């Protein structure tokens, strides 16, 4: 059980506080409700590029990192398709430095052209390092475009194409900031050995004068139901053939999400899971094979991804996967197997309750989904899933017309 207090400033900033008396550190987590799904289809990768710019100085402070390092703090950030999240941990007595820095960059960025020019280059190198210059690095560009025709999940956070990053302008940067980086579109979560009155006083001091922005409606073009199977084949200079399959599934707030999540665990969480035992170890069709969910806020993807062993054909590999999925559509999983995947979720939840930064981040993310207390209640939804629920989800999701299959051929094979 993670306890927390919640209050809202007049400018709309949502504040969460979790008290943890056991640590000399505090965590300050700032979540902005903006991700790659909020981007213009011709200016993709922008939310993430913007995350880089947030470290390039704010209205009154030329450099974000230096003052924080000087008080013994550490920070980082990430962007995904739904949110952008900034986090700091530092010695408790220096919490004001964190609030001073975070509030100033919420107030106004410095918008220096140099920062944009440099971060543009850095992000292009990130694009190359993680997506283009890596074996199998381009799969998410391909899979997202196959699965999503309408919803902005059709591009990954890094962006559709390097040219979008190259073409970003300062006008784009400013417009993005004043639209999405307002207090009413943010959640601040503080965790550590403080009291609620202390937190209220500090947050009011640093954040109350930040002007409110226009409300940001979170409305996205919803993906229409897919009606026919999609297939694509590419050839790349990689050592092993690879097979990818994605199916549309529920978003994180939707009914059925937890059952689908457990369904993916039955297939591949842990060494004893079905795909590992049967297709990797027993039949030795795959060098590695996994199933997982993207866990996005809007309807996401159920992903199956595997690298084929030499001598195994794509037909054999696909047939074996289809057999496994059909098994789950036709037969109920045993109580033991279901309990096994639930037990893993339950103990992972416990390990997640140890560190303040984990807790602060999880509270903020759940709040952005509508209710911070989901951090405590979601586990019940997992516990209540039945074998029949699992089968229902399998029947609903594993339909050929709901699938996109990518055959990723190794050039030399």
């Amino acid at each position: 059980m993670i306890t927390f207090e919640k209050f809202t400033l007049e400018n709309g900033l949502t504040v969460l506080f979790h008290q943890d008396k056991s640590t000399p550190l505090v965590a300050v987590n700032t979540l902005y409700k903006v991700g790659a799904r909020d981007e213009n289809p011709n200016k993709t990768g922008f939310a993430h590029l913007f995350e880089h710019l947030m470290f390039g100085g704010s209205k009154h402070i030329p450099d974000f990192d230096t003052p924080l390092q000087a008080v013994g703090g550490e920070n980082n950030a990430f962007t995904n398709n739904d949110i952008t999240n900034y986090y700091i941990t530092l010695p408790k007595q220096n919490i004001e430095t964190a609030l001073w820095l975070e509030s100033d960059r919420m107030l106004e960025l410095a918008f220096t052209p140099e920062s944009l020019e440099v971060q543009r280059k850095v992000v292009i190198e990130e694009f190359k390092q993680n997506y283009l210059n890596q074996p199998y690095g381009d799969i998410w560009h391909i899979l997202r475009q196959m699965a999503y025709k309408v919803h902005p999940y059709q591009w990954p956070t890094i962006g559709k194409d390097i040219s979008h990053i190259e073409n970003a302008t300062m006008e784009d940067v400013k417009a993005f900031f004043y639209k999405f980086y307002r207090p009413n579109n943010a959640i601040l979560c503080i965790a550590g050995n403080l009291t609620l009155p202390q937190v209220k006083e500090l947050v009011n001091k640093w954040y109350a004068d930040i002007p409110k922005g226009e409300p940001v409606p979170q409305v996205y073009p919803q993906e229409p139901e897919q009606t026919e199977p999609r297939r694509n084949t590419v050839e790349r200079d990689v050592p092993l053939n690879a097979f990818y399959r994605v199916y549309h599934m529920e978003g994180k707030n939707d009914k059925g999400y937890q059952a689908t999540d457990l369904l993916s665990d039955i297939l591949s969480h842990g060494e004893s899971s079905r795909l590992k035992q049967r297709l990797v170890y027993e039949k030795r069709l795959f060098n590695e094979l996994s199933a997982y969910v993207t866990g996005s806020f809007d309807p996401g993807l159920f992903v199956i991804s595997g690298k084929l062993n030499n001598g195994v054909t794509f037909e054999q590999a696909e047939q074996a996967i289809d057999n496994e999925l059909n098994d789950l559509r036709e037969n109920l999983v045993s109580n033991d197997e279901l309990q096994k995947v639930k037990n893993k979720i339950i103990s992972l939840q416990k390990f997640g309750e140890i560190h303040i930064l984990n807790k602060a981040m999880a509270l903020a993310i759940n709040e952005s989904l509508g209710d911070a207390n989901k951090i405590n209640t979601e586990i019940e939804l997992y516990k209540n899933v039945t074998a029949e629920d699992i089968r229902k989800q399998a029947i609903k999701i594993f339909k050929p017309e709901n699938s996109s299959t990518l055959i990723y051929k190794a050039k030399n094979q």
Partner: protein
Amino acid sequence: MMDRTIAPEIKPIDEITFLHPEKETVNGMHFYFMSGLDVDVLKIEMVVKGGSVWQQRVLQASFTNKMLKKGTISYDAQKLALKIDYSGSFIETSTDKDKANITLYTTHEALNEMLPVLIEMYATSVFPPEELKKLQAIEKNNYLVNQEKVAYLASKHFQKALFQNHPYGRLAEEQDFDTITVKDLKDFYETYYLNENINVYVSGMITDKVKEKILNSFSVLELPSFDAYPEIKRIDKSNKEVLKIGKPDALQAAIRMGKILPGRTHEDYVNLQFFSMVLGGYFGSRLMKNIREEKGFTYGIYSSYQNNLFASFMVIGTEVKNDVLPQALEEIYKEINRLTAEEIPDEELQKVKTYILGKFLKSCDGAFEQMENFKLLNENNLPENFFQEYINKINRITAKDILETAGKYFSSKEDWVEVTVANFK
């Protein structure tokens, strides 16, 4: 109106407390208990003196360790996996240059079930030939995928050049995955695992009952003593080497460079650590500022001072835009040379000091972290007050100290190893 240009007052970091675990010895095996969590979870880490430095042939240490999960006297690989997964626990095995680890993450509830499993894995592994074949195929394929990565290639060739003929420099090639045998693994296992020289580190929520259970369970093991480890020399010096490795079609070039340095007990250790931090040890470091934040050549660059039982070394690593490789190299050398020529400004000196202390505070936040610190001391035969002394030295360090150390170790490039992997057109 408050003046936002003025930073809040910097408050000094309180004294950092390093906790010492409770110690117990059972049948020659050492146990350490660090309590302090309010969630009923446990981490039980067994450390075996079975790292790659002790192996007679490459892959022996890592394969022995990976095979622990592949069958014991009472469970085959599948049953073992099922048993672990069903309990909601996780068992991780890993090796590095010096040691091998088996780590159980579990809850109070699952402890009774999992202790015998952990002990079986450690003490009664059977190395089924069929399982080894599967592992060989999987690991060979992983190796082939890694060979496509410039960072992996650069790192591998850097280590080979740095460590030369020392066991640390013997790394696997493709054919090694085909030739390893069950006998290789059994030999290594019987010699290096099945002896009383193991340390068991337990951290998390520890009650008397938990402690008793753990000690009782391990007391069934009666292992021989062993001290016939082969003699291994410490590496004092690297030899100059510049390696350029072609990787056609690479979009980025990888750089790994560095040299052998003295170890943790040397009088220059703290200064060298500080030097590495200033150069490339954190986000605000000189290399990050220059190569990433000013020039945009890379997504990231670091320097790291790594310490093993038989060698310590510094390595600088990055992946940069292919066509700026010469400039990136020039800038890296420029930053190193600048530290050998000019004193660090006071503001930067103070910032790095506080940053290091803040990192230390974080590394002491909780029972798992405190145990990691203790384990580092214990496995490297360092005195109990090592960290306290380290902090005292950090507090006293001056710009002049760093300049002197930089001059002593980084003026000459005669022992410098530089590896680049790139699309050399």
